[in-house]
């Protein structure tokens, strides 16, 4: 186990500006994002597939996402976040052409299958 892992997560320090010691943190404070963010270190988090698998066992949503990332990399997740952010920030009518792309999929699958 990484020695830096603390109650707030790996490499994370108590949130900046909270002005209270950890002992004084109430359940409400613990459960809500702090108004300040932990300092950032450019070291990537430690990968632990076993730990992740253990978590995914208990959550179908997380399991599905883990499988998606394992198969297609992280691109879909970035795309999902960007699409939602764009919808929120700019009220852009996103999604229409993605629907078209998905609708094409069965046809594409058939055509590829014929050539396999």
């Amino acid at each position, binding site marked *: 186990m990484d020695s830096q892992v603390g109650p707030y997560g790996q490499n994370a320090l108590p949130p900046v500006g909270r002005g209270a010691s950890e002992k004084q943190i109430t359940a409400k404070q613990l459960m809500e994002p702090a*108004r300040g963010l932990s300092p950032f270190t450019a070291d990537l*988090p430690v990968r632990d597939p076993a730990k992740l698998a253990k*978590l995914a066992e208990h959550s179908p949503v997380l399991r599905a996402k883990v499988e998606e990332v394992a198969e297609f990399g992280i*691109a*879909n*997740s970035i795309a999902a976040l960007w699409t*939602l952010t764009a919808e929120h920030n700019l009220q852009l009518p996103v999604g229409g052409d993605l629907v078209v792309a998905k609708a094409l999929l069965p046809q594409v699958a058939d055509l590829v299958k014929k050539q396999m």
Partner: protein
Amino acid sequence: MVFKDEKEESEKQQSADELLELTAANLAEMIVQDAKNNERQLLPHDVEKERAKLEFIKTLQRSKETLENGVHELFKALAVLSKSDATLFSSKLGNELAELVQFCSSLDDEEELEKYAKATLEDKSVQELCNISNETLVHFYNAAAYLYAREQYEQALAVFAVLILLNPKHSQFWLGSGNAAYFLHQYPIALQAYTMCAITNPFELRCHLYASRCHEALGQIDQAINALDLGLITIIDQAVEAHVREALDKERVRLVNKQNRGKD
């Protein structure tokens, strides 16, 4: 000016339409050709992979405005931060900001888009492709954290979206993004971000706690309890102080009671 905007909008639409002209037949051809070029056997999930790439390209293309907005907010925050740190704007930071601007411009170019999408699917980051150093990434994060601390959540979310695109393997970017969305009451965005935070760092506790709050706000009490359970699993083999576990247990009891009251 209005005329220029309309022209830009029309060009953007034309470009989107051109992408849509990609028919099933030539998409299939592309997949088959790619397998041949790389002398590998064609696999059924090649279709899915191609779809993922296509969707990613389209998202990038559609999100150009979001990216530009994020970069704009990043510049503004860096400018403010440089007032208290005269050494911030080094030539290195300047050059790497220029790389980022160049990347934004390249989103009009389909070949460039294809290159970025392919690299991302191969687990390479835009940070690597644009030669942006970790040192600069820290400055970018500080800019996002500055906006967040000033409760400018819209702007912070936009900058975090840029950071995630640059390097999605950093769980802190997903967490920051989730938190900004949380305070904007954009819970579906926050939940997406918290899920990715857990995947990129399975030792991170906070994403589960805040996801629980999001689910509760959406009236999904079952899932709020499930998120807390994930939090408890996260810390099961970690040395955390007793009050953290106690707080989690208490919170779980509160949610179970709330769920039971709902069933009555």
